[in-house]
């Protein structure tokens, strides 16, 4: 039981940045803009957040800096691919390259620690918080356990993410912006003739995608590790993109995909060095590969045909 709780607990931790990035990707891809730059935006946000938190000793100012850094890259992507109809894949790739280059360079120049940022002290980090009555309820069987062990004791950013999920889902399906977002990604010409500004919707979508990536990056550096480490996103942006496709570009299924990947990742840590019956000890390399193998398998056959937004990747040019 304890084992299971701690496994699920770390699933939530691992899933949080994935969920944020996947929802970020959903905004931009639903608007018709391919977003392989999730990775780069997260990385830049992680760096900016850690640096700002170190200097100001405030995790919240770190969060703000992370969001601003990520949003500014998102706006570069928008400028290239919406305003100038550039190739969205190349623009996204450029963002990733810029991010993985500029973060260690600035890190080295500012902190002289091999491209990383110094370890943050306790005041400058986000901490786990106990929800009210967690201690009091910890002895109540099942419900109390679930509440105090699983739900309580996470960072504020985790709770923020849990709140964001239904909000995003509601925005996409129930709001005017959501209708326009989906229309623009599916048939921008239809939206255009109906009096919707395609460029405006895409800019807004990319902006919110930037905000969410900013939170995801901040989570990694200012909460999880307490410092920025070179290439610390380690493919999480692409994993989030895979989860998005797995969820067929719908918010809730995409979140589910993230949880699945996170669960595989969390079990991998626990399997390492454990003697299993029959097979014995599995080499750690084989275990580490599980989430990626899972990704390939799921995308290859399990989800069936993933139907992307029809206008994805195609710059909108008014025809006539």
């Amino acid at each position, binding site marked *: 039981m304890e084992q299971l709780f701690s496994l699920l607990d770390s699933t939530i931790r691992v899933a949080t940045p994935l969920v944020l990035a996947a929802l970020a990707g959903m905004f931009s891809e639903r608007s018709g803009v391919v977003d392989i730059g999730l990775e780069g935006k997260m990385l830049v946000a992680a760096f900016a957040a850690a640096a700002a938190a170190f200097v100001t000793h405030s995790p919240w100012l770190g969060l703000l800096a992370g969001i601003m850094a990520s949003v500014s890259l998102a706006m570069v992507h928008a400028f290239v691919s919406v305003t100038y109809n550039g190739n969205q894949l190349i623009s996204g790739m450029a963002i990733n390259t810029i991010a993985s280059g500029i973060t260690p360079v600035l890190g080295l120049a500012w902190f002289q620690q091999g491209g990383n940022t110094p370890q943050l002290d306790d005041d400058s980090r986000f901490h786990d918080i106990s929800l009210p009555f967690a201690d009091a309820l910890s002895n109540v069987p099942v419900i109390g356990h679930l509440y105090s062990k699983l739900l309580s004791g996470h960072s504020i950013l985790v709770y923020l993410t849990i709140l964001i999920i239904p909000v995003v889902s509601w925005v996409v399906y129930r709001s005017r912006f959501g209708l326009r977002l989906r229309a623009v990604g*599916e048939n921008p*010409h239809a939206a255009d003739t109906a*009096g919707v500004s395609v460029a405006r919707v895409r800019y807004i979508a990319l902006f919110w995608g930037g905000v969410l990536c900013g939170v995801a990056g901040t989570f990694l550096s200012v909460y999880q590790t307490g410092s920025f480490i070179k290439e610390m996103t380690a493919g999480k942006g692409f994993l989030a993109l895979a989860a998005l496709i797995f969820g067929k570009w719908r918010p809730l299924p995409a979140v589910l995909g993230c949880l699945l990947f996170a669960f595989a990742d969390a079990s991998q840590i626990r399997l390492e060095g454990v003697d299993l019956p029959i097979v014995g000890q599995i080499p750690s390399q084989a275990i580490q590969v599980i989430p990626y193998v899972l990704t390939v398998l799921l995308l290859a056959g399990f989800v069936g045909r993933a139907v992307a937004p029809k206008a994805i990747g195609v710059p909108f040019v008014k025809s006539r």
Partner: protein
Amino acid sequence: MTDFAIGLNGICKRFGAVQANRDVSMNIAKGSIHGIIGENGAGKSTLMSILYGYYQADSGSITVDGREVRIRNSQEAIRLGIGMVHQHFMLVDNFTVLENIVLGAEGGLLLKQGLAKAREHLQALNRDYSLEVDPDAIVGELGVGLQQRVEILKALYRGADVLILDEPTAVLTPQEADHLFCILRALREQGKTVILITHKLREVMDITDAVSVMRAGTVVGNVRTADVDKEKLADLMVGRKVTLKVDKAEREPGAAVLDVRQLCLTDARGVKLLDDLNFQVRAGEIVGIAGVSGNGQSELLEVLAGMLEPTSGEIRYQGADLLQEKSSQPRAALYRKKGIAHVPEDRSREGLVKSFPMFENAILGYHDDKSVSKGGLYSRQALLARTRDFIRQFDIRPDNAQLRVGLLSGGNQQKVVLAREIHANPELLLIGQPTRGVDIGAIEFIHKRLVELRDAGKAILLVSVELEEILALSDRILVMAGGQISGEVAARDADTISLGLLMGGHKH
């Protein structure tokens, strides 16, 4: 004096070297159906795009309800009560009818009350004009006729008093077109103004109250429909006498050149695109395939030309099954060598390379021809000479073999393709939409060449969505609906009504 809903005064619009509209003036009476007729490229669409705010006129003025206005974008046009039903529908396929209608006019940040309001409004419109559209249907699953009505509803929901329809019947069966005309008449009764852009004379005669005829960017006539007849309109459109009929003698066809048996084609999703087709095309015969576009005609042509592999069946050409042929070269090239020429439906994508000069296009698909090459290199002289021959025989303009083909008009591009395919002296000619986007003068010419080819004893399979063309050229007519042949009619017994029923899928 009549009230005018729309007044256009001296509209001019130039795109680079092309004067699309030159001093165009017309008045459109309130509560009338006004036709704008003209050949492709006559400037009809440009004019309507100016009215709907896509373009700005270089000079001239527009009045709506007698007041002079400036229309800078389509939102402003909508605000002035102008609605447009595009030729290519502007709908989001995976949205419901209701969602499509409120898009851009949601009435608030949240969708809920907007959708509820729209639903009520929609039911009222549905009743008033007997449109019979289910607000909760997914648009992509509706037929074209219904999709078009969604477009009309979209405009009406936005409060359109003037409705512009751009070639609305191009995608409809004659029966669907009749239903559309009923709706348009109902709109007129309710005081709406309808502007109908078309190049079909019959439609103008059937439904309009007044008509403006355009030619080469100018208005050559503003007339009351009651005062003119088809021939008069056709003369105005082209600027000279045209014969709408093709002279063609009865002729006894020879042996079967093409014999298609049980031909089937199923796509990746399991949809039957071609469903058990059986027919022959004989020497000295034009077989026309009629049907609303998207019923398998395009796929049939591609299968016969070797561009698509059928799922099952036989294609017997001069007695032997083509599908059994083993060859290392692509099927399309093999079929060409055997004497099957193909003028594809979409000539700009499949028939030509637009950025190549005319003389290079003149040998596409026949580039192995020894007579134009020497020692593995093309002889430029031979290519140019052949192209000049084409230009002379087919009256291609301008007569410059080195000009990029993309710069030619649609009619002249088609002549290049046709000249190339006929030059190969084929036994069987497959030809799709021979006169799509081609002006009337060139249509006459192309039709004549096709009949000459038939009289020379060649077999021709003609696919066209223009019923008049099918009726004018064919000796026999096959009708396709839903991937099947829904009927066969001898040309002399055929008329638009019986063909229309077959096109709708009613079997004999």
